[in-house]
């Protein structure tokens, strides 16, 4: 009794449209949402060509399967994960091979799927719960016959073997998936002990992890209702397959400062620090939940994870960038810098949105380029929504303008 994957027809069209050079393989990602009963695939993206490699053919004697750049596939998976809002994740991989490599494809897929999972979860600030589905799908496509072979691997168990799974096409899978949104105010004060940049990273990680635990444990209201128990997210609603209206459900999150490790202390925790870091601002969060009788608490979990991911991703990106620019010896220096801000764009066909992060010196053109490279889709720049998070500089400029006006009023009155 294997898993059932309900796949958007558009994904099917994408997969059949893939061009593979004769004798070579094409790898790619499958993204969507898993639920205990069934899984939904809403996006397929082939692995982008790596610019450093000029050749498409494997060197003599090496099978194209062995030549797959595992590191590049996993990096792509990580980048794509960052672009997916809450509730959606990389569910698996596809592999197109010529007929003669079909029988070795399974091993290739198994190697890849475990590598991808391992890389994606590195640095993630929340743990999978017992209820999370740990099966990932591998889809093999024969380039000649176009035959599909769909199997799953349980990534929790490295020794697990492939299990058969169903692959079914449907139209408009996600067209009526409700979208949860919220804007979250973040103000984290993180002490930094030690002076190297490794220390900075570790302290940041620890600080974020503590905050992430608060968010995970937080009380959540979705559309005004408690999201704790097994009650259905949207009860008393007739399911009309004809409606394509997507419901937007506002989420509200309430935290307490309860920290279990500070627990029953009788004195304060004092650390000698070489400095501190503060992450401060408002993040806009989004999550989708399938509409096959979703439970309120799964929806709460999806939006919470998005909150955690979006803060974590941009800090990670910023520190990576810092490392490249300032070098690893520099460590910590003072100042305020804008973290990349989140922008949203429509996902190819499915009607859901994807996101990206824009550094202060970037424009929507840069975002469009990244979307093309990572998600293999053309996005007109005007479709990229940059309005959800205000530019830090805009705010500062506005404040200065206000101050100037006030001063001049005072002066002239």
């Amino acid at each position, binding site marked *: 009794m294997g898993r059932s994957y309900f796949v958007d027809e558009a994904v099917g069209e994408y997969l059949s449209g893939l061009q593979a050079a004769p004798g070579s393989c094409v790898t790619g990602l499958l993204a969507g949402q898993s639920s205990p009963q069934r899984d939904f695939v809403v996006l397929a993206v082939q692995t982008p060509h790596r610019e450093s490699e000029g050749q498409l053919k494997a060197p003599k004697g090496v099978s194209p399967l062995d030549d797959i750049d595992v590191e590049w596939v996993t990096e792509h998976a990580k980048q794509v994960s960052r672009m997916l809002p809450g509730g959606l994740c990389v569910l698996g991989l596809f592999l197109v091979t010529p007929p003669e490599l079909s029988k070795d494809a399974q091993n290739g897929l198994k190697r890849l799927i475990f590598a991808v999972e391992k890389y994606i979860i590195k640095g993630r600030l929340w743990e999978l719960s017992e209820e999370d589905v740990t099966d990932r799908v591998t889809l093999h496509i024969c380039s000649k016959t176009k035959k599909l072979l769909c199997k799953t691997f349980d990534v929790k168990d490295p020794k697990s073997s492939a299990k058969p799974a169903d692959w079914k096409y449907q139209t408009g899978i996600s067209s009526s998936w409700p979208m949860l949104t919220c*804007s*979250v*105010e*973040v103000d984290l004060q993180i*002490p*930094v002990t030690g002076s190297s940049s490794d220390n900075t990273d570790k302290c940041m990680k620890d600080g974020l992890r503590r905050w992430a635990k608060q*968010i995970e444990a*937080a*009380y959540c*209201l979705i559309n*005004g*209702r*408690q999201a704790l128990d097994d009650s259905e997210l949207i009860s008393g609603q007739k399911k009309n397959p004809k409606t394509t209206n997507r419901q937007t459900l506002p*989420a*509200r*999150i*309430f*935290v*307490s*400062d*309860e*920290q279990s490790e*500070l627990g029953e*202390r*009788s*004195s*304060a*925790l*004092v650390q*000698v*620090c*070489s*400095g*501190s*870091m*503060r*992450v*401060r*601002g*408002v*993040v806009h969060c989004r999550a989708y939940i399938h509409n096959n009788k979703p439970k309120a608490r799964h929806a709460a979990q999806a939006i919470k994870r998005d909150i955690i991911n979006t803060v974590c991703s*941009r*800090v990670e990106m*910023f520190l990576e960038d810092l490392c490249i620019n300032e070098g690893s010896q520099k460590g*910590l*220096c*003072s*100042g*305020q*810098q*804008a*973290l990349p*801000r*989140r922008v949203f764009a429509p996902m190819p066909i499915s009607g859901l949105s994807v996101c990206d992060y824009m550094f202060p010196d970037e424009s929507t053109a840069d975002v469009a380029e990244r979307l093309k490279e990572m998600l293999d889709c053309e996005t007109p720049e005007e479709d990229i929504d940059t309005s*959800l*998070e*205000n*530019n*830090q500089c805009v*705010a500062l400029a506005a404040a200065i303008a206000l101050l100037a006006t006030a001063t001049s009023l005072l002066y002239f009155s």
Partner: protein
Amino acid sequence: MVYSEECDFIFRLKGILEFACQLDNPNGVQSQSTISKSFQDLRSKVTSKNIVFTVCNSPVLIWPNTGFQSSVESLTEASACGDILQWIESDDGGSKKSSKKKDKKKSGPTVVNMKLLFEVTEPAGNTAPSLIRVSTQQHCVKMPLPLDCALSVTTDERLETVCTGLVEALNKQLADMEEVVLQYRKGSSFLVPQPFHFQLPEPAGLITVVYPAGVPDSQLQAVREDLHRKFELPCDRPYLRRANAFHFPDAAYKDGYLRNPHIHLNPPNIEDAKLYLVQGVYSYHHYMQDHVDDNGWGCAYRSLQTICSWFQQQGYVETAVPTHTQIQQALVDVGDKEPRFVGSRQWIGSIEVQAVLNQLLGVTSKIMFVSQGSELATKGRELANHFQTEGTPVMIGGGVLAHTILGVVWSENTGQIRFLILDPHYTGGEDLQTITDKGWCGWKGPEFWDQNAYYNLCLPQRPKTI
């Protein structure tokens, strides 16, 4: 607010707020103002629009600082606070009504537990995050503040007033905590300020005092003296030691012993008689508890344990209730018994009880001798006086039995008397129903005593201390 004794409800709000600050120089003059600034920020936090009270075991959320909003439509600012009960799911599935049995009394005010939360969504601004880095050598101080506010109210008090009152209480508690933190700080060593609730005699009612963690009661004498003066409390008995903290009616005692089983009994209706009872709280100690099989010989030991539990819970001592072995060892230590007494099953009497109370607790006791059981009926005045002034449980030994007297109903005019007896010979479990129904804790007449045996009573005296 109103006097607590008539109060139907206690609203209790608990939550943790993290205190954090960065000190450049913990011993410098700036540090005090930095600490005060952090507390000021916390006070702003609790008066901001972001704070939310959630009522435990219910879907009710209240935003107290936005002109009163609640997540449940029917609860508005005009709602009486009693209306909140219908939303709370009680753990046992039943209602908190008093027992249906006869001779049982009401169990006191209903506690509504609430938790303090902060909303992080619906922010005022929309500015994307920045990273602000500071690189000066600093001492980073973090401390969870265990906020705990309680308000006694009547059913018809408006919910909005209760919530406003709780916000004020939070503010005040933060101010009290700031004072305690500053007072007990040594450089970068900070003690966590802990709130304790005390039920004081009217008109003070339910108050909250903040004490520094880790500082024993013995070192807080001056603080208590000030508070005794402020609340006009008698200066000869403790009201504000940590052990005197108010026990909320809905909280179970973790040690499993029953407290004050006598309150579930109705005193006998004797014409012209007055009631004189033990004051405060004791635990019921009896045969077979703590895996000690003392059936047949341990009754005086158990009565002694009941008395020790009284002194511990009224805050006079911090030592735990002694075991049979510890009691025997104490008697050896004072030279009253030979070393082989320890581990034996020998009985003890009132004199030994007096000796142990003195040795282990520093408590002195008066001994009252009665040559015949029938004479006990004439000791009404002495016992009434004892319960009025000392209010401690009385151990009585005679014949072959020992008991604990918890009170008397006595008429000065007619001389009629009844005794409230706690019987240590009970061998069952901590079942209140059985204990009260079968009279293991119950009112007895003068015929209860062996009319011909002689009796010794040990009347423990309260130390005159706060």
